[in-house]
């Protein structure tokens, strides 16, 4: 080959190389220096001086990237707050509203089409629009409008959009007040949007009614939130909290495909979501002032769910955790009051079936045939074929469909609800009466709200709208499917996508509550024994593990006297497993059925203090065994019914309560009859194999933080870390390493208050506050939640030309 030929071949190869690069131009276009979208405005945060149509305001960031926002005008304050939220969290805000609108596929393509289909069918956007319409004319209208304008001002002025937008190559729409209402709907849905009624019907049909003993109406335990003999709440006669809610009616057949589809796309609460909070009155504290602790357990994500803010404006000085996209402190403290929340787990979603005709275009209701309201929308799909979706509704709410079976859905959040107004009132409350005015309009999601104030008052109030269902004039539980055509169980005064009058809901004053309790703790356990109305069965409410531990420690500390913030912190970081307290004696009792390494593990557990610490070998053995045992007990029966582990009971408590000779312990795959001890031993053999195969040595080898960004780009995730705790410990981190305490707060009026989030306050990857609290959170450390505004102004808002202009 001549030199010229060689050169030409080389040239052809090089040209082919350039051509090859060109085929990857999207990737190259992202990463190329100077012009690459990834580096466009890399690190730029926008101007230091911004015009504010409502007047001056200042933003000063503290050492943890928490913005302290101050203004003399309320609207100027919320405008600045909106600008700041957008600066730090714009992508997360846009993602939430895209999900709720059903517009993810326009950006993410095919993989989110079914999610979009579901969210469009539920028509959350219309519910948010109705909510916003209802909020107009109330005190929260101006803050919501000002926030939206502040967000949009950032969109106008930002030197570059956040990295995520640039990587995906799209620009966000303007923010509107309806989007803020959508954020509220997203939170409410994430905590109450469960289709347990349908799952229960599938389980009952597949496994038989006897299987429902794994799904009791209430867990038998001694630590409801409102404790008999401890708290002053009038219990109804004869109730112990475990009354059978079932009324013997057979559920209609529900296609499993519908439940499986909903699991995949609905995005409601997972089994691991929960929360802790407790308050102690001054009677039991070192300082004589009340104390409050709260840590809500949600999906841990990058950036965190919560955004910490301090807002100081006319008549208000409040600090705490906000949802980006909403102008309010949802959990926090002002100069007079502090409050915290955990999820009640109220059943606020019902399903209905109907008699239909005309190919499903008409349904029978109230003795007549009515047309199904219907319209068609198009889901835009990036890089794929657009899809049409039919949005159908009855008087009760939207219809969802799979395998030709349509089910009507009523969810409290589909009405115009007022929780933004409620939280606005919390933020400005100076005492218990003003705070109750907020609780009165807190419609959804039902929260175990605990309250303390500077005057020493305390309160527990699980405020929300809880529907009362009636069939033939009798109160009935909501954990089954109703005959919509017969008007069974429907909620009086409920208007989906409109203003409700709420007559058929538990009256605010009749919701079980405590005024000035000495101490009270909530960890998603049942609210109270013997209450006259159904609030939700055990699958809605939590197990008693965390509640037991908190109440036991509080009982002890109260007896010893002088509780302080150090105790509150220590309890919030408690890794002791009550789950293990119940099981380990049973494991030890089965020692005789084990041998070799399995027996050594049993001996290890016998000596264990039941602390779920990352460096503990016993905690590793226990966690693997508990999982193996659950599977050993349930898999044979469930697999035979073609139900996967997603259908297992949400909690282990009912398995722990089974008789040692229960049929569930028998392994259907053997000829003999096994009992609990056999299942315990078999699970320990599985544990030995699993630990050996995986090469784990301590709990932290298996149980690790896995807090990820929605993008499949590793550098955006938080660092991996071995972690202690579990879904059942007060220090809360689920087995997935991605569900747990999303915010820890200790509030006091006699000394510093404290807080920490799992990650950082900024969603900007380049920020020093992207993950600066992660190790603190993991190590059980806190930062002070000060009301002092840091020196120096980071963003100065000056009165703009249209200052005082219309919103």
């Amino acid at each position: 080959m001549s030199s010229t030929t060689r050169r030409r071949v080389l040239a052809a190869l090089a040209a082919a190389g350039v051509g090859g690069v060109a085929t990857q131009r999207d990737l190259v276009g992202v990463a190329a220096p100077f012009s690459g979208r990834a580096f466009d405005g890399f690190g730029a945060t926008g101007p230091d001086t911004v015009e504010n149509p409502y007047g001056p305001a200042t933003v000063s960031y503290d050492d943890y990237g928490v913005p302290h926002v101050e203004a003399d005008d309320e609207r100027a304050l919320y405008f600045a707050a909106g600008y700041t939220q957008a600066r730090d969290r714009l992508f997360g805000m846009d993602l939430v509203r895209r999900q709720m609108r059903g517009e993810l596929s326009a950006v993410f393509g095919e993989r989110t089409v079914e999610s979009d289909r579901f969210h469009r069918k539920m028509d959350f956007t219309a519910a948010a629009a109705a909510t916003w319409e209802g909020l107009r004319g109330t005190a929260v209208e101006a803050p919501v409008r000002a926030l939206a304008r502040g967000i949009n001002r950032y969109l106008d002025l930002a030197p570059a959009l956040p990295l995520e937008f640039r990587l995906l190559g799209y620009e966000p729409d303007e923010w509107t007040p309806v989007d803020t209402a959508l954020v509220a709907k997203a939170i409410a849905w994430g905590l109450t949007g469960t289709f347990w009624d349908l799952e229960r019907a599938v389980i009952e049909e597949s496994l038989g009614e006897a299987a429902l003993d794994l799904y009791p109406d209430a867990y038998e335990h001694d630590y409801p939130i409102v404790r008999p003999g401890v708290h002053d709440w009038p219990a109804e006669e004869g109730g112990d909290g475990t009354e059978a809610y079932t009324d013997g009616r057979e559920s209609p057949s529900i296609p499993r495909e519908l439940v499986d589809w909903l699991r995949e796309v609905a995005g409601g609460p997972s089994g691991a979501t929960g929360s802790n909070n407790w308050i102690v009155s001054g009677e039991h504290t070192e300082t004589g002032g009340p104390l409050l602790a709260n840590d809500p357990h949600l999906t841990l994500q990058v950036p965190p769910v919560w955004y910490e803010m301090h807002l100081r404006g006319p008549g208000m000085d409040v600090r705490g955790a906000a949802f980006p996209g909403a102008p309010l402190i949802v959990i926090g403290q002002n100069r007079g009051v502090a409050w915290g929340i955990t999820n009640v787990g109220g059943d606020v979603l019902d399903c209905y079936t109907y008699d239909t005709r005309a190919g499903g275009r008409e349904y029978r209701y109230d003795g007549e045939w009515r047309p199904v309201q219907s319209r068609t929308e198009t889901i835009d799909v990036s890089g794929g074929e657009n899809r049409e979706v039919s949005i159908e509704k009855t008087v009760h709410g939207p219809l969802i469909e799979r395998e030709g079976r349509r089910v009507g859905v009523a969810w409290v959040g589909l009405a115009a609800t007022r929780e933004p107004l409620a939280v606005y009132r919390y933020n400005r409350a100076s005492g218990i009466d003003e705070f109750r005015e907020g609780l009165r309009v807190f419609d959804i999601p039902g929260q175990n709200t605990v309250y303390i104030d500077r005057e020493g008052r305390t309160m527990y109030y699980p405020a929300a709208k809880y529907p009362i269902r009636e069939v033939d004039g009798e109160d009935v539980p909501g954990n089954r499917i109703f005959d919509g055509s017969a008007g069974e169980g429907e909620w009086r005064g409920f208007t989906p996508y409109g203003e409700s009058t709420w007559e058929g809901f538990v009256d605010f004053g009749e919701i079980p509550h405590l005024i000035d309790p000495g101490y009270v703790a909530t960890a998603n356990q049942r609210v109270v024994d013997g209450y006259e109305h159904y609030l939700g069965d055990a699958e809605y409410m939590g197990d008693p593990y965390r509640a037991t531990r908190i109440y036991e420690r509080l009982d002890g500390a109260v007896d010893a006297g002088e509780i302080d913030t150090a105790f509150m912190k220590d309890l919030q970081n408690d890794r002791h497993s009550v789950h293990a307290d119940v099981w380990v004696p049973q494991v030890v009792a089965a020692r005789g059925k084990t041998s070799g390494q399995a027996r050594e593990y049993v001996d290890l557990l016998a000596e264990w203090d039941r602390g779920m610490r990352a460096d503990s070998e016993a905690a590793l053995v226990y966690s693997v065994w508990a999982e193996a045992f659950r599977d050993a007990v349930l898999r044979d029966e469930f697999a035979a019914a073609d139900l996967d582990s997603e259908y297992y009971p949400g909690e282990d408590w009912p398995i722990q309560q089974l008789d040692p000779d229960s049929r569930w312990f028998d392994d259907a795959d053997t000829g003999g009859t096994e009992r609990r001890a056999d299942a315990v031993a078999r699970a320990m053999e599985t544990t030995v194999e699993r630990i050996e195969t995986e090469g784990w040595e301590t709990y932290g080898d298996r149980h690790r933080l896995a807090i990820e960004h929605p993008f499949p780009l590793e550098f955006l995730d938080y660092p991996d870390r071995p972690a202690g705790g579990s879904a059942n410990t007060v220090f809360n981190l689920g087995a997935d390493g991605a569900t747990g305490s999303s915010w820890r707060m200790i509030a006091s009026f006699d000394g510093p208050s404290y807080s920490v989030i799992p990650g950082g306050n900024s969603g900007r990857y380049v920020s020093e506050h992207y993950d600066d609290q992660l190790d603190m959170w993991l190590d059980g450390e806190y930062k002070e939640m000060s009301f002092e505004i840091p020196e120096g102004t980071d963003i100065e808002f000056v009165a703009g030309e249209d200052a005082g202009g219309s919103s």
Partner: protein
Amino acid sequence: MSAPASGALGRVTDAVDRIREAEHAAVLLGGAVGLLAAFLHWGGFVLAGALIGLASRSLTRAVAFALAFGVLAWLLFAASLLRSGVFGAYLGMGQLTLLSVAVPVGLPILGAIAVRGVY
């Protein structure tokens, strides 16, 4: 040197020869033009390599100049990130970081080789 040619091709070849007589200046100019273009589009790195290849007296020199250009371009980019205080974050970006090195270093070399094969 290229072999004598006639017609339009000959005129182009003559022009290329004249450019190569002032190799260093031409390489610098080609690099500068390509760099400016790279601020608008990644194709600027290919252009830079092509112009450098055109101006270089041999394939080996073309590759060497293109490599030097790529390294300098990346250093310039890195300096801008250092100045903005985000260089540490940039280094942690995994595949994007690697790609952001490969693009300015690799594309000019490909551009230079491709052009040297023609002229």
